């Protein structure tokens, strides 16, 4: 028995030793790596002086945009408010004399906002959008409550040419297939194309 086991055990010891040496070498490599980095040029951006251009999809300050005609895009459908996981969006809808809806007031509490972008996802009119402007620190919590006049911007944001009411939401004037982006109707009864 013991004769059979002996070589196995010495093999085990050798394996342990080489493993130990390998680990020690790994330690040396680690120390060398950190020492080498001491002499490298830091890649730090000195923030207030140096500012990076953030990607257009960065999710920071939320704005309400306007359509190409300069009209408010928001139709106060409450979808953003419903989609918001922290309930920081609230509004009051109202109807204009021409039958179109708009938000009488629109409020985002940025103290609660988690900048998840779900409101932007939910918005059918592309009115509410998140922008790369992240410098929105305030001293008081109440200063972080943004009203509609704080949120509304002049342009169309990421989708400057989109106009919801050209696509949907109003009675179609022409015949079928004549609307913007609409295909010709298909005659389902015909087998011949």
């Amino acid at each position, binding site marked *: 028995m013991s004769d059979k086991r002996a070589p196995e055990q010495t093999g085990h010891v050798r394996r342990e030793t080489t493993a130990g040496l390998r680990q020690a070498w790994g330690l040396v490599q*680690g*120390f060398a790596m*950190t020492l080498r980095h*001491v002499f*490298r*040029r*830091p890649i*730090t951006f000195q923030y207030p002086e140096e500012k990076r251009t953030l990607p257009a999809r960065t999710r920071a300050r939320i704005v309400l945009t306007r359509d190409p005609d300069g009209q408010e895009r928001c139709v106060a459908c409450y979808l953003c408010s419903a989609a918001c996981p922290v309930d920081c969006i609230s509004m009051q809808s109202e109807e204009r004399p021409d039958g179109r809806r708009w938000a009488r007031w629109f409020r985002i509490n940025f103290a609660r906002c988690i900048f998840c972008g779900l409101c932007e996802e939910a918005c059918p009119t592309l009115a509410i959008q998140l922008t790369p402007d992240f410098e929105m620190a305030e001293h008081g919590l109440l200063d972080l409550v943004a009203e509609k006049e704080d949120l509304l911007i002049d342009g169309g944001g990421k989708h400057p040419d989109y106009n919801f009411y050209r696509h949907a939401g109003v009675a179609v004037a022409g015949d079928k297939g004549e609307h913007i982006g609409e295909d010709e109707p298909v005659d389902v009864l015909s087998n011949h194309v």
Partner: protein
Amino acid sequence: MIPSWLIDVGLLVIKLAVSLVGLLMIAAYLVLAERKLLGRMQIRLGPNRAGWHGALQPIADVVKMITKEDARPRGADLFLYWFAPAVTALTAFLIAAVVPFGPALNIFGHRFEPMVLDLNVGVLYALAFSSIGVYGVSLGGWASNSKYSLLGAVRAAAQMISYELPLALSLVPAVMLAGSLRLTDIVEAQAGLPFILVQPVAFAIFLIAAFAEAKRIPFDLPEAENELMAGFHTEYSGMRFGLYFLGEYVNMIVLGSLVTVFFLGGWHGPLLPPMVWFLLKVFALVFVMIWSRGTLPRLRWDQLMGFCWKVLTPLALVNIVVTAGIMVLLS
């Protein structure tokens, strides 16, 4: 004519003041140096806003800590809670009292030693006070009345008491070679050859044990911010936390200077003045401590204890026996 004893007392007061203020200043700027170096290792800049390249950062930190609210947890043992940080800081300062920074000088016919106290049992004194350092940490963690702090304190107590053993054992060969427990004698014995060349194993053991004593990474389990939210000082705020923090950095310097005294030949060195050599060696060791913080991950608890009891302690004992054998053979 000024009586001789008055000069002695005056010198002692001056030495106390200089070493206290010096240590405080070095500790404060060590924090900055550590943050800067760690930053560089992670290819970032580190603090650079307060003053020239962040030179005023320590002052800003002190102002911040003094003006912070000094919260205390409900149900804490108030006396121990307030007392514990002072123990940690104080023991670190007290060890520094026996560290010789340079050779004895002759000033106006007066023997002047650049150290507060030249004890003939300096080694024992240093080891004793580094053991008392455990009290500050474990009492602080216990008195906080918090489970996180308690766990940190238990870890700290177990770790520091365990590593105290190889720490002391690795000094035995140095004491044997020098034939004295007086730190100045130990330094003098290394005039020709620093003990690191004679006793590389003891040096390695002492260095590792010193890391553990100072609760430096990879032995920072008592503070383990990931799992213990800063461990024994979870409940401390303001200047009380500051004292723990300060004690830790003073400890770094003190342990660095002990390594210098025991193994790197203290103030001995060519060309440069002795004091400069001493400080250079201490700062080199402190750099190694910071360097390893930038490199190594935290150990697992069982690895930490196993390493101490299964590797370091037996190795230190064997080292003593081997050293004694060689000394007998050579004599």
